[in-house]
């Protein structure tokens, strides 16, 4: 029960957030942060059971027929992620309180962030794949809302749309993959699928399902070539970048890969595809990060590179790699989250994020400088920070990678060197050296702005010194979830003098050297702008414009504003479909049912035909209205001739009201003049005749074709007994088929609102 409560409490607070914000005013951030903190403590309480291997379960039926159940499952992996999400969530809420202080829509911001946190928790705790998918889409949605938060700015809107289209598209692929997997594996429950892995991997549908899953994961975790939406997402306020686009949301793809490892992993395709994507992203992310000058974009590209490392490690698939992945996951979330928050604090205080115009802030913002320094050192992998252990493990994992180890190691080292440089540029450069002029006179950031970065950086240091703290309570159960086998994990700071240590030292030195040569690379990148047509974001833009162009053309064609073309299209389409159905097998029974037509029916029929001709050829619209009135009364009498008083009364009333309506409408219409040429009138006549013919054929066929037993018998007998009414027509309308009538009157109401709006539209 508790698991579901953690998720839905987040949603509940998200709904209440705007109102509570009005009450709590300044301290909202602090108060709201209590929820994620409580969740973290509550979940942490289960680490003993999780370590012992039995996972916590809860399941609620939702759509039993489709196999969709809201089932939750807490094991090592989900515990690790859930703690990250809720822990950093609490810090981000406090940070957001300070960063967006006094912002008009801060209440709305809180509800979006809380909605995101709840859906992210949903993703990591869900056991049913479809439930996971629903939360997955909710994260994309809330990320869209958050990126586009200051929606007045055009680039925020386009960045939000870009993020939504790509992650949303990936989500669709994921859904298809889930359904495929569900049909192959027989159930949507991850735990159930886990022990059916043998059969899944041999199944012919395995490859498509795998590809779809990978597509979903790669778009969400910004792997190449889908990486370009992440730097774009920096248009979001910094708390969002710190929370979604570094620590949690972009890790959803990594989580999915880790969670599906026991089910989809282990095959050659998985190994090559994931490793390739990971390595490529790692390299591209790093290379693109180097020339950047904006603090947040630097961090964004380095996040892309870090995600690449994580995916690469999951691709390698050895126990060593899984261990490195889990440790690096924690390391990266901590230092990247705090660096983002630091960047936000610096931007908040100095008014600029351009690295070249920042310097010497250490004297003015000592605490922020301390946090930034610690985080940067952890990023470079400097002992005694946790980052050092992370880097060591990564290098060991790459060393023992089964395939192409030297190549992977080589790319890894380059990426890490650039990582070190970026850390220096972001974490160290703004605080050292001579002071530069900045738009706003900086002073120390308020408590709420430096608390987050400092806590996370300190955690990086603390865990670095005592890795045992998280070793077997968090990391090893997570690895068990991924590898589905028992692992004893020893995490210690010092791995002894070996090749890996040499490699780390070399990386740091090369990184510092590259730091001093960074301007050269910036000029180099400047000249490379010519190649920009290759980048995927250009392709994305071209694709979007092409889509919009096609949409405009198609709309101009079909919605060209002329009512008669709309009618024409509708009639032609209906005719096509119905003619097709009429011709089909059930064929035509005899038409004897219509032999006995009584003389007064024929007389009435002929009279109505004459009236129709009058309506057709009359010069004035009012004559046509009168002729239609005559036809209407004729139909009413025909209803009487066929013994349907209810219908006759309705027809009489409707006819009179429509005549009145006609008169009123004609009063407002301009004088009647022939608008259409004879050719188009001929075309309209032809279409009308065809349509009329079709309808008659349809009615004839329908009356003497018995597809299903008639239900009118049932209504007739039970009308009095069940529904206390002798008038079967009305009884059907308001009792047996009341739901249909409810639908009808709703439709009528909506139509009336539409008509009212149109009539009140004063054409200015």
């Amino acid at each position, binding site marked *: 029960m508790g698991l579901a409560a953690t998720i839905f409490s987040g949603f509940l607070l998200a709904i209440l957030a705007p109102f509570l914000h009005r009450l709590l005013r300044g301290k909202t951030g602090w108060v709201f942060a209590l929820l994620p903190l409580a969740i973290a403590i509550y979940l942490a309480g289960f680490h003993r059971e999780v370590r012992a291997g039995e996972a916590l379960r809860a399941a609620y039926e939702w759509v039993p027929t489709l196999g969709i159940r809201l089932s939750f499952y807490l094991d090592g992996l989900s515990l690790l992620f859930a703690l990250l999400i809720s822990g950093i969530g609490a810090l981000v809420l406090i940070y957001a309180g300070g960063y967006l202080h006094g912002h008009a829509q801060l209440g709305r911001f809180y509800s979006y962030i809380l909605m995101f946190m709840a859906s992210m928790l949903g993703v990591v705790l869900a056991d049913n794949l479809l439930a996971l998918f629903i939360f997955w889409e909710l994260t994309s949605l809330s990320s869209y809302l958050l990126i586009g938060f200051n929606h007045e700015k055009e680039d925020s809107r386009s960045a939000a749309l870009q993020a939504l289209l790509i992650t949303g598209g990936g989500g669709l692929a994921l859904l298809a993959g889930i359904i495929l997997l569900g049909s192959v594996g027989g159930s949507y429950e991850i735990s159930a699928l886990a022990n059916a892995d043998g059969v899944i991997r041999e199944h012919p549908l395995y490859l498509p399902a795998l590809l779809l899953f990978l597509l979903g994961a790669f778009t969400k975790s910004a792997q190449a070539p889908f990486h370009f939406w992440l730097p774009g997402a920096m248009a979001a306020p910094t708390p969002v970048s710190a929370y979604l686009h570094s620590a949690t949301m972009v890790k959803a793809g990594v989580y999915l890969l880790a969670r599906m490892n026991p089910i989809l992993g282990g095959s050659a395709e998985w190994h090559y595809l994931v490793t390739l994507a990971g390595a490529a992203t790692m390299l591209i992310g790093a290379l693109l990060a180097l020339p950047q000058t904006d603090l947040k974009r630097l961090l964004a590209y380095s996040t892309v590179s870090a995600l690449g490392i994580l995916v690469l490690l999951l691709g390698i698939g050895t126990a060593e790699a899984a261990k490195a992945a889990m440790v690096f996951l924690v390391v990266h979330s901590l230092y990247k989250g705090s660096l983002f928050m630091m960047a936000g604090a610096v931007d908040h205080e100095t008014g600029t994020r351009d690295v070249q115009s920042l310097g010497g802030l250490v004297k003015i913002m000592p605490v922020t400088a301390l946090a930034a320094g610690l985080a940067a050192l952890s990023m470079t992998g400097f002992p005694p920070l946790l980052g050092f252990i992370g880097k060591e493990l990564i290098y060991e994992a790459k060393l023992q990678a089964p395939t192409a180890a030297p190549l992977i190691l080589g790319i890894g080292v380059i990426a890490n060197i650039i990582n070190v440089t970026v850390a220096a540029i972001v974490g160290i450069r703004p605080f050292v050296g001579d002071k530069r002029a900045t738009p706003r006179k900086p002073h120390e950031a308020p408590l709420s702005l430096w608390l987050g970065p400092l806590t996370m950086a300190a955690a990086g240091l603390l865990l670095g010194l005592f890795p045992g703290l998280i070793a077997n309570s968090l990391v090893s159960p997570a690895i068990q979830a991924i590898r589905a086998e028992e692992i004893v994990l020893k995490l210690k700071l010092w791995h002894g003098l070996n090749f890996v240590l040499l490699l780390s030292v070399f990386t740091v030195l090369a990184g510092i050297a590259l730091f001093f040569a960074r301007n050269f690379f910036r000029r180099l990148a400047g000249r490379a702008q010519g190649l920009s047509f290759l980048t995927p974001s250009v392709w994305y833009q071209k694709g979007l414009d092409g889509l919009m162009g096609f949409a405009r053309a198609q709309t101009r064609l079909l919605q060209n504003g002329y009512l008669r073309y709309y009618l024409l299209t509708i009639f032609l389409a209906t005719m096509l479909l119905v003619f097709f159905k009429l011709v089909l097998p059930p064929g035509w029974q005899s038409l004897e049912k219509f032999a006995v037509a009584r003389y007064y029916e024929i007389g009435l029929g002929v009279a109505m035909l004459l009236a129709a001709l009058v309506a057709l050829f009359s010069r004035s619209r009012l004559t046509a209205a009168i002729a239609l009135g005559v036809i209407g009364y004729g139909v009413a009498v025909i209803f009487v001739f066929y013994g349907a008083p209810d219908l006759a009364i309705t027809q009489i*009333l409707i006819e009179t009201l429509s005549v009145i309506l006609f008169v*009123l409408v004609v009063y407002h219409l301009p004088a009647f003049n022939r608008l259409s040429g004879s050719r188009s009138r001929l075309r309209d006549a032809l279409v009308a005749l065809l349509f009329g013919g079709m309808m008659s054929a349809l009615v004839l066929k329908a009356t003497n074709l018995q597809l299903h037993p008639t239900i009118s018998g049932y209504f007739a007998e039970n009308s009095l007994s069940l*529904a206390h009414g002798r008038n079967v027509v*009305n009884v059907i309308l*308001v009792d047996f088929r009341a739901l249909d009538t*409810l639908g009808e009157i709703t439709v009528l*109401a909506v*139509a009336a609102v539409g*008509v009212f709006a149109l009539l009140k539209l004063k054409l200015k």
Partner: protein
Amino acid sequence: MTSTILRIASRYLTPVFLFFSLLILYRGHNAPGGGFIGGLLAAAALILYAMACGVDAARAKLRIDPRILVAAGLLTALLSGALALFSGNSFLTGRWVMLHLPFLGELPLGTPLLFDLGVYLVVIGITLIMLFALMEED
């Protein structure tokens, strides 16, 4: 310049129409009639009044804005369905109660009748929305 005869006539005819429409609404369950027809008749009555004494007079006489009528109608229909829920069976099942009036004898009242009343209000509302909107183009 409306004709006096029409104005006087409508002052007497409209109440007759309205009474008749309510009669049709009530007896609809056993004889030809029902919410839809009753609604149309009531709407016709008010349109007659509008034609005779002007749209504003008709709106004043109706006192409720037709759009609120539509909303009220939908709510009544939903409520009549929901009543069945309270007594445990599914949405929109008919619940009947027999009312023993002192001299009128039994008067069967049921949720379908309430539903019919909902339809009645919706139909009046939508017809008047459209026709009043057309009529008041001055």
